[in-house]
């Protein structure tokens, strides 16, 4: 899961992202006018990364993570848009054991999802997407002793847009996504299967929309 196939998918996504950027910057005005882009800041909560049992139960969790989200989309049908969303987080992570918490350092994560957007009602719209999520530990130790990992990711969300000028909107977004987590080090230590990790993020930002 972390080797060649994800690299191929990442390459594909990079191509699509490059296409969107080119469409937004170097294409005819008609296409440029249809590109919708946004930037948001917020927080991401994540469920347990891994569980272990060494006399006492040990749980590994990320702290609440500051989040930067960037998105761009193009219309594909009268009511629907397709687009890419990049979400970056950076936070500490810790091990909890019998009421004691041990700080284990910092993890940066980055996700790229290809998704669809559509209207719910009024200013509210939905988003569903799938892509890849990368974990980049600041220090290669513990469960990340052999480095970070890249996982497949799927998610859904809601966006609320309130126009503040003829082109600019304020956007509030909620995202839920899910992936299966493990690392090369955990596998080398005899961990089998993977841990289901759920993340919920809430972000607020601005978007240049099409009306």
């Amino acid at each position, binding site marked *: 899961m972390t080797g060649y196939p994800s690299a191929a998918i990442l390459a594909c996504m990079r191509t699509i992202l490059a296409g969107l950027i080119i469409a937004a910057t170097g294409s005819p005005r008609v296409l440029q006018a249809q590109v919708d882009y946004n930037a948001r800041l917020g927080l991401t909560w994540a469920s347990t990364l*891994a*569980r*272990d*049992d*060494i*006399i006492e139960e*040990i749980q*590994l969790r990320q702290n609440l993570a500051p989040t930067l989200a960037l998105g761009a989309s193009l219309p594909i049908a009268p*009511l*629907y848009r397709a687009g890419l969303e990049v979400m970056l987080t950076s936070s500490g992570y810790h*091990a909890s*054991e019998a009421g*004691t918490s*041990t*700080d*284990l350092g910092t993890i940066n994560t980055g996700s790229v999802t290809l998704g*669809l957007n*559509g*209207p*719910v009602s009024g200013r509210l719209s*939905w988003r*569903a997407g799938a892509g890849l999520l990368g974990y980049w530990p600041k220090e290669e*130790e*513990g*469960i990340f*002793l052999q480095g970070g990992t890249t996982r497949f990711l*799927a998610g*859904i969300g809601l966006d609320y847009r309130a126009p503040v000028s003829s082109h600019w909107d304020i956007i509030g977004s909620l995202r839920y996504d*899910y992936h*299966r*987590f*493990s690392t090369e*080090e*955990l596998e080398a*230590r*005899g*961990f*089998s*299967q*993977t*841990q*289901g990790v759920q993340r919920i993020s809430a972000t607020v930002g601005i978007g240049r929309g099409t009306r």
Partner: protein
Amino acid sequence: MMRFTKPLLLAFAGWALMSCADIAAPSRGNAYEWRRLLSSGTGVDTFSFHWSTSDLPVKYWAEDSLNLPLHVQHGIDQWEALFLYGEYKGVVVTDSNTADVIVMTGIAP
């Protein structure tokens, strides 16, 4: 909207349901509870010790002889790499008064 959303939601729910199992830790039947049992004249004595989280990092002072500080640092690195959850961290200090452990050269028995 239903033309897109229903299949997407069903696919997402199906994928989540199919992958509900948690990660499975390896069996650790041979774990020891920081106890060492030693026979004594009156039976078996239990010696218990471990570095608690508040003790970390354990401070080592090594005599500057035969490259000992470097070897101690290498030993600390090796031990740290064995632990997944930060149970042990060590550091070499230059002042022996602040050390938890003092390492000196000696003649092998």
